[in-house]
């Protein structure tokens, strides 16, 4: 294998815009190593398929990291949903009871106010009657 064959196989293994920089990197690498070290460099880099696999493996690890994060988030929201479902039988009657208490309180307060007015009226009428 020579440099030309190595690079063409690498390009085949790493097609797409995502890997343009990888191709450029190895082109530069050969330039730096020099023509006299071409064979040695190829032997040392390994097969183009291997070189490509190393880069792809890196991408996969990165993707897996991303998946893990979203999986954790997914579990969190799942637990919130589960919690709400289990809380509903308790929370719903509780909410109804609180609402009923509030209504009862307002009604009783209203009754007290009305009775106070009624008492005031009664006293006033009683007072007028006494004067007459």
């Amino acid at each position: 294998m020579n440099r030309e064959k190595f690079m063409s196989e690498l390009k085949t293994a790493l097609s797409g815009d995502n890997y343009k920089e990888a191709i450029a990197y190895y082109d530069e690498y050969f330039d730096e190593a020099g023509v006299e070290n071409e064979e040695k460099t190829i032997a040392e880099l390994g097969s183009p398929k291997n070189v490509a696999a190393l880069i792809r493996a890196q991408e996969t690890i990165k993707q897996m990291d991303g998946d893990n994060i979203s999986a954790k988030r997914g579990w969190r929201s799942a637990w919130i949903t589960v919690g709400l479902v289990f809380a509903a039988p308790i929370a719903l009657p509780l909410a109804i009871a609180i609402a009923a208490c509030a209504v009862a309180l307002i009604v009783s307060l209203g009754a007290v106010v009305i009775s106070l007015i009624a008492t005031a009226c009664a006293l006033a009428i009683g007072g007028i009657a006494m004067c007459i």
Partner: protein
Amino acid sequence: MALQIGNNMLDMLVLAILRENDTYGYVLTQRVQSILDVSGSALYPVLRRLLQVGACATYDVPFGGRNRRYYSITTTGHELLRGYISDWNDYRDAVEQILKGGDGN
């Protein structure tokens, strides 16, 4: 060195080399290979990862009718390296403790 080298170790070494001065892929590879038995193809994935997390940046310098792509360490890279060095120190101390064979007790 016959010890297995993990990704973090390579990340740490590359960042430490870049902390000294900016350099390009080939020289970086030679430098790491002078102390570790790693393939020449092991360094590009490391650089790619470091670029993706913003730990290093690149710029091109014209050289002999082509470009040399230099890598430099970023602020994020410095932070990452500090963490790695701290982990490394802990790890090294723990290993030495075992290698000493109970001298520390």
